[in-house]
């Protein structure tokens, strides 16, 4: 189909009256990549997507698509196509007319419109439903039609605003795989807004974690998972325990942090400025019932035990840490089960604790 375009966002801000929704973010999305904008609601991810699409004016900064500055272009002339959260299918038109809408706007003849719409519907396996109205389709079918409608404009980048949020969990996983396959086939740039870490991890080549209108980290999913840049990313991705405290000791490539409750913990990395530091401990690397090495564990009271099949999720408090999470394999757990209220030692290896950066430092 068409060539993919890289998207270059250069210190773009969005200001509503006195409220700033997006704070001068800069981001380069390589051509042909699958990029996920990830964050909690109200973090500015949808606003960013809408600014790329041209449905939201850019307060300051510039957006380039390929070699064109699209900042002031109308949506249809940017080479982007958007798929809306609620799909926004026209209820008064049938499926084929919905898909052919942009062609009708361009003044393409009726027969050609119909043929091209049917071709596009074949691509998403919806050609059998061409004569139906959107209200007669299921959520998953509507989603395919919306996809076909966006792709018929031959976009260089496809922008998806929470495309899977209206689907039930089983369908979500299936459609997710289809989206990834489609992106591979078409080779165009996908920008996908989501609040689901799982979705972003499964799909993206580039995850952009946003919070309060700023980019916390933009990196490959593996980097985001293994080396979260900030405490927010570590907490939001949910696979790390974040321990905050005062820097007590700095050695070569390692830091010791002292928390308010008295516990001292070691972590790899350079200390941030200001004497305070956040460290992250991988939840799945925590071992249970093993006397910890100094600075690499503590003894805590178990506050909750959640059985999840292949693993067991334990929550514990102790040594000044609240809600410490440990994910233990079911084999290891049932070899020596613990119950709520029991005091258990938690331990981890030196390489499983890292120092987190701070955004404003």
């Amino acid at each position, binding site marked *: 189909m068409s060539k993919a375009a890289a998207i270059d966002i250069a210190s773009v801000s969005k200001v509503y009256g006195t409220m700033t929704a997006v704070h001068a973010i800069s981001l380069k999305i390589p051509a042909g990549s699958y990029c996920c904008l990830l964050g909690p609601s109200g973090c500015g991810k949808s606003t960013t997507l809408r600014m790329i699409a*041209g449905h939201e004016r850019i307060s300051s900064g510039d957006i380039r698509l390929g070699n064109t500055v699209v900042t002031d272009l109308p949506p*249809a002339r940017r080479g982007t196509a958007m798929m809306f959260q609620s799909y926004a299918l026209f209820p008064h038109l049938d499926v084929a007319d919905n898909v052919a809408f942009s062609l009708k706007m361009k003044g393409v003849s009726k027969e050609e419109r119909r043929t091209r719409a049917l071709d596009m519907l074949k691509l998403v396996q919806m050609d059998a439903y061409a004569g139906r109205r959107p209200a007669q389709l299921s959520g998953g079918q509507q989603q395919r039609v919306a996809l076909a409608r966006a792709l018929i404009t031959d976009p260089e980048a496809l922008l998806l605003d929470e495309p899977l949020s209206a689907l039930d969990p089983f369908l979500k996983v299936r459609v997710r795989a289809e989206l990834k396959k489609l992106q591979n086939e078409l080779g165009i740039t996908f920008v996908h807004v989501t609040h689901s870490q799982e979705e972003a991890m499964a799909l993206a080549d580039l995850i952009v974690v946003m919070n309060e209108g700023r980019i916390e980290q933009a990196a490959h999913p593996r980097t985001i998972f293994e080396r979260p840049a900030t405490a927010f990313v570590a907490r939001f991705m949910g696979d790390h325990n974040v321990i905050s405290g005062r820097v007590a000791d700095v050695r070569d490539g390692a830091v010791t942090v002292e928390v308010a409750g008295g516990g001292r913990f070691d972590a790899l990395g350079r200390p941030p400025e200001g004497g305070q530091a956040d460290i992250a401990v991988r939840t799945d690397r925590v071992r249970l019932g093993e006397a910890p090495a100094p600075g690499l564990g503590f003894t805590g009271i178990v506050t909750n035990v959640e059985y999840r099949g292949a693993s067991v999720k334990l929550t514990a408090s102790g040594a000044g840490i609240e809600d410490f999470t440990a994910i233990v394999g079911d084999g290891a757990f049932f070899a020596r089960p613990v119950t709520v209220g029991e005091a258990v030692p938690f331990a981890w290896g030196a390489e499983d604790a890292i120092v987190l950066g701070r955004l404003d430092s």
Partner: protein
Amino acid sequence: MAIAVEQPAASPARPAGARLVSVLGRLAAYLQAAPLALILGVFLLAPILMIVAVSFWDYDFARLYPDFVLTNYAETLGSWVTWRTYLNTLKYAAIVWALTLFIGFWVAYFLAFHVRTATMQMVLFLVCTVPFLTSNIIRMISWIPVLGRNGLVNATLIEMGLVSTPVEWLLYSDFAVVLAMVHLYTLFMVTPIFNTLMRIDRALIEAARDAGANGWQVLSNVVLPLAKPGMAIGTIFVVTLVMADFITVQVMSGGQSASVALMMRNQMSLLQYPAAAANAVVLLVLVLLMVAGILRVVDIRKEL
């Protein structure tokens, strides 16, 4: 244990009890529907049936004779005066409908798409209802000093030197009738159209823009088709109101124009009730046919 002992004794009594409950349940449903059925029956169905019955009665200058004669219909439909009056009323209905639809759509469009805050929408909507704070008669009489021979409009036109003698057709003319009706009935078009426009998902407009539609294309391909149910409801309001209007026609035309309802009123003042009843039945059938036609063209069920 006690329950197990008591159960056999209780079970023979149950079918009778259950039957009573189900009868009461069915009765309750009828009772719940009764008040509305009664009101509609007494105040809508019965009067219509009475009019239909009276339309077949005979009459002279003094009294009515219960009968079954078709002369009332024959006289009504056989007279060219009736036909001209119906055509005149339909002409008013068509002109007023076109004008209220045009004005009503744009007012509703402005309110729904260009007024940002809900408070401002409410305020402007209330402004639209201001004419309804006074009675119909006062609103019509107020036109007289504006449109009359020496009224505001004529005075201004003469002052500006645009005309040398007062414009005669401003008052007591078809123009005045249509003007007053448009003034009276535009709100009935604004309200339902505003309602449908407010229900249009704003994402649809963005989706249309994303597909390259310009302002007019968004209007003709998305907004207008989706506003059709509101337009149909407004059309039903306006058409039925104009078809049944007599006071506006009488006052604003100065008695020079006729409408079907005015003709009926004259017949009633001459005590020709059966003739008026026959006329009413014909008008009712005509209006119902028009409403049926509108409903065939536009599906308004989503709005109800």
